[in-house]
C-alpha cells in the first residue's frame, strides 16, 4: 500500500482552479521531486496534504488515514513533516525550544526525552552548538536546517519540502541540500518541490511535472528531466537552462 495517496483532489481559490483532479501516490521510502512552472499548484499540492488548505473534492490518505475528518487530519499532521521556503522558525524560542515545542505539546514527550531527541537531530544537521541561539542569530541555511530538525523531531513517516532552498543565498544552498540528501539516503519518504534540477536528477526516484493544476508527467528523472517528450516540459527545461 502506498504511504501517500491522493485521489481526484480538487482545490479552488475563488474562481481559480489550482488543483484539478490530482491522482497520485508515493510509496514508502520513495523520494519524489515536484517541478513545474510558477503558479502550477506545487505549493498547494503539498499544503492540502496536511490540511493547511482545505480541498473541495477528492480524498487524501497518509498511511491509510484519511484527512477528511478532523481526527484523521490530526493523526496525519503527526505523520507528515513540512519544511517551508521561509523556514518559519518560532522567533521567540531558541533553537532548542523550536525543536522541542511540538514534541512536548503534540507527542506529550517529557522534557528530558524531548531534549534528548532535539539534541540528536540538531547534531544530525550539524547545529548542536546552536542550542541556545535564537533564529535571528542564525544564517538562512542554519535556520532551514533547524526547521528540518524540528520537523524530524516528530518522527514523521513522510517529509514535504516546499522550495526549501529558494530563499537562501547561493552559497548556503549546498548545506541544506546536503541534509536533504542524507535524509533521502536514510530511507525517508519525501515529496520535494524544487527548482534544483541537479538535486532532482541525483536524489529523486521519481519526478512529477505539474502544469495548471494537474500532474502532466510522472516518471524517472531520466524520462522527465533528461529526455522529456512533452513539448511543455521541453519548453520548461529550456527556459531553466537559459538563465
Amino acid at each position, binding site marked *: 500500500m502506498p504511504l501517500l495517496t491522493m485521489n481526484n483532489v480538487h482545490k479552488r481559490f475563488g474562481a481559480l482552479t489550482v488543483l484539478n483532479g490530482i491522482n497520485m501516490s508515493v510509496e514508502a521510502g520513495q523520494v519524489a521531486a515536484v517541478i513545474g512552472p510558477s503558479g502550477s499548484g506545487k505549493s498547494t499540492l503539498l499544503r492540502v496534504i496536511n490540511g*493547511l488548505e482545505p480541498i473541495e473534492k477528492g480524498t487524501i490518505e497518509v498511511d491509510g488515514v484519511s484527512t477528511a475528518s478532523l481526527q484523521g487530519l490530526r493523526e496525519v*499532521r503527526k505523520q*507528515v*513533516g513540512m519544511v517551508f521556503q521561509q523556514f518559519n522558525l518560532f522567533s*521567540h524560542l531558541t533553537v532548542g525550544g523550536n525543536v522541542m515545542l511540538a514534541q512536548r505539546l503534540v507527542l506529550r514527550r517529557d522534557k528530558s526525552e524531548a531534549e534528548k531527541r532535539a539534541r540528536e537531530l540538531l547534531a544530525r544537521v550539524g547545529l548542536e552548538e546552536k542550542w541556545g541561539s535564537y533564529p535571528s542569530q542564525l544564517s538562512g541555511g542554519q535556520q532551514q536546517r533547524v526547521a528540518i530538525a524540528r*520537523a524530524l523531531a516528530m518522527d514523521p513517516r513522510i517529509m514535504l519540502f516546499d522550495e526549501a532552498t529558494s530563499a537562501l543565498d547561493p552559497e548556503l544552498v549546498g548545506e541544506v541540500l546536503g541534509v536533504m540528501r542524507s535524509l533521502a539516503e536514510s530511507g525517508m519518504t519525501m515529496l520535494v518541490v524544487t527548482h534544483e534540477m541537479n538535486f532532482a536528477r541525483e536524489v529523486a526516484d521519481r519526478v512529477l511535472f505539474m502544469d495548471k493544476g494537474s500532474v502532466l508527467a510522472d516518471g524517472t528523472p531520466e524520462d522527465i528531466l533528461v529526455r522529456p517528450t512533452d513539448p511543455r516540459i521541453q519548453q520548461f527545461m529550456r527556459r531553466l537552462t537559459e538563465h
Partner: protein
Amino acid sequence: MDFTPVWNARWLLLDSFLTTLLLSTIAVVVGTLVGAIVAVLRTLNVGILNVVLRAYVELFRGTPLLMQLFFVYFGLPMLGVNVDKFWAAFSAISLYTGAYVAEVFRAGVEAVPRGQVEASTALGLTFVQRLTYVIAPQALRVALPPLVGVYVSVIKDTSLATVIGYNELMRRAMELVLQYGRPLEIFLVVGILYFIICFPISKFSEWLERRLARNGA
C-alpha cells in the same frame, strides 16, 4: 502651602481614592478580558461574528466614554432596563476599554508572521496551543507598550464616572476646593494619588517587556 484642609478631608479622599482604584481595576482587568476575548474570536475569522465584533469595536472607540455612561445610566431605563450606578460604570468602562484593548491585541496578533502559525499547524498544534505558545507570546510583546497607553488613559477617564454620581477622586477634589479653597494643595495630592495607580502599571509593563525581550531576539 497649607495642607490642613487636605488632612482634614483625608478619609473622604481615601474613600474617593478607593472608588477610582475600583473603577481603574475594572477597566484594566475586565477591559483586558473583554479585549482578549474579542481579539481571539476575531482570529477565528468567522464572517458574521467578525462583523459583529468589528461593529462593537468601532462603536465603542468612536463614541466618547461620557456618552456611553449617560446612555447606560440614563438611556437604558427609558427602555425599561434599570441599571444601578455600579453596573452602569462597570459595563460602560469595561466595554469602552475592551474595544481599545481588542484593537491593540489584534495589531499584536497580526504582527506574528503567518508562516509561523502555519508551521505550528503543520506540526500538529491545536488552535489553543498555537494561540498559547506561538501567537500570544509574540503578540503580547508588540501589544505591551500601546496597551499601557490604553490603561493609563482609561484610568484618567474613570473620572467621568462622576456624571452618574460617583464620588471618585476628581469630583471629590473639586468639592474640597469649592469648600476650602486651596486648589494647589488639593490637586497636588490628587495628582499623586492618580500617579500611585498608574505608575505601577508602567513599571510592571517595563518589567514584562524586558522579560519577553530576553525570551527571544
